[in-house]
């Protein structure tokens, strides 16, 4: 059956939508907004080709990272067509609108590009970079080791840029804020119960240890840049003084938020959206205390949730 992969995807999508509950509304809103922006760009005609390239590259990167290729090519009928259809459907809301604009010729180009993508059948095997990382970051802070390996290019680039421009107003803080958003994603996986219980800590002490480790790394990374920035921009001293506590409260909230819904061996994809919303909010003056308030609320929720795993 040629549509069997699509049938599986629809089932998975339904399950994800159920899991997201009301969070699906902002996701649909963002997708609708992007679809609207792409339609406008297709009408103007200037950036149409770049949108098509971006969509093709997006599908290519998904194709390289997907782990079901061997299964699909081995067990499904017409695997090439099935994967192609999947990418066509995925890009449809952001590409089909070009058919009613003067950039209509982009759509057949996109289809040709998408048709070629399933021809790449090989799978990338992840290599262990930075093998001695546990000499710098303690293995008990495995979230940081794992997160750094996943995102080291972005982390290093952002940090070097923040150092390079540390004498400028706002820009280094913006880069560090972006770095905080990357660090938030370190806490999206729930470790196994064996790892959780290592050290036999009570829920409160367990959370404090996690928070301490995170705060230490953030202080080591952010403090030198903020000090230099304050030296060059004394008029921004108050903003600089508030910056690190806000980033710490954001990360503290992320840690407590994860453990408030901790389920062993699960990846909490649904947590990403609320975290993204709170981190966006933390950049707006009126919402600055929000992460700190949420941290306090979720600290107690996390403590309660962990009781079932850590208390006798």
């Amino acid at each position: 059956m040629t549509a069997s992969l699509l049938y599986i995807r629809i089932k998975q999508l339904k399950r994800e939508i159920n899991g997201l509950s009301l969070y699906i509304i902002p996701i649909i809103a963002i997708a609708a907004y992007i679809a609207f922006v792409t339609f406008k760009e297709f009408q103007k005609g200037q950036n149409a080709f770049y949108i098509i390239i971006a969509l093709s590259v997006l599908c290519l990167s998904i194709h390289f990272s997907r782990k079901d290729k061997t299964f699909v090519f081995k067990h499904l009928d017409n695997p090439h067509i099935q994967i192609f259809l999947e990418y066509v459907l995925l890009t449809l809301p952001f590409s089909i609108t070009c058919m009613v604009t003067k950039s209509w010729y982009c759509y057949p180009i996109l289809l040709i590009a998408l048709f070629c993508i399933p021809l790449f059948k090989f799978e990338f095997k992840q290599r262990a970079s930075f093998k001695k990382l546990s000499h710098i970051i303690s293995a008990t802070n495995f979230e940081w080791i794992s997160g750094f390996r996943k995102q080291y290019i972005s982390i290093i680039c952002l940090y070097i840029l923040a150092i390079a421009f540390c004498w400028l107003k706002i820009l280094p803080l913006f880069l560090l804020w972006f770095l905080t958003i990357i660090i938030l994603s370190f806490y999206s996986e729930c470790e196994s119960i064996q790892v959780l219980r290592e050290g036999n800590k009570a829920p409160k002490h367990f959370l404090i240890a996690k928070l301490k480790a995170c705060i230490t790394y953030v202080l080591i990374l952010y403090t030198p840049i903020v000090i230099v920035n304050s030296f060059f921009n004394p008029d921004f001293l108050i903003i600089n003084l508030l910056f690190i506590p806000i980033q710490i409260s954001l990360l503290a909230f992320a840690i407590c938020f994860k453990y408030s819904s901790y389920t062993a061996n699960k990846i909490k994809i649904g947590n990403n959206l609320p975290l993204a919303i709170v981190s966006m909010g933390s950049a707006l003056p009126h919402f600055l205390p929000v992460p700190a308030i949420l941290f306090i609320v979720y600290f107690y929720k996390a403590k309660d949730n962990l009781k079932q795993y850590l208390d006798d």
Partner: protein
Amino acid sequence: MISIKNLSVTFGEHVVLNNISMNFLEGHVHGIVGLNGAGKTTFFNALAKTLKADEGLIEKDGIALTIKDTAYLETVNFFYSRITGNEYLKIFKQTNADFNLQTFQQYFKLPLDELVENYSTGMKKKLALLAILKQDKPIFILDEPFNGLDLETNKILELIITTLKQKGKTVFISSHIIEPLLTTCNEIHLLENGRFIKSFEQAEFNKIDDALFGKLKEEATQIISDAL
């Protein structure tokens, strides 16, 4: 003595462990066998306190069993992404002074500098096993430890279990393959519909096959011959 008193676990309407009361001798290897859905993993989860029982007590020498008392090897092992085998092992403090990684590595040959997500099922099982052997716990719970292991490692695992017994540890093992249990266990307990219905001493191990599969063989023989 590890005593289970009136242990019950239900999932919704479904009773998985049904008012179990049982005593297990310490320093022995206890095999837990049962057909699919008998409640083996739920029993282990209750023993390791990874799930809360609805009712009942689990005691060790008259004192409630604690999380610190058990090391638990689950059937399927989960590892944080982009972590190497070495880093995973470093997460666990070595409380077992005799544990020597290099010695185990002579047999397991794990690529400890590689990411765990690139490991095979058997390699992941070996890594998880090493992590629990690093710890000095009185009770080891091994749920399907022989699954996915190669022949040599199966034999090494049997030797590990025997050594744990000699060191006075209490070991609980389940397995879908009866043979390794026959060589390692002091007693094998038959779990059926959430209750232990019979325990076998070593001298009675030859009766296990009939007790476990007798009914199934009786029912299935005719059905299969009709269906084929």
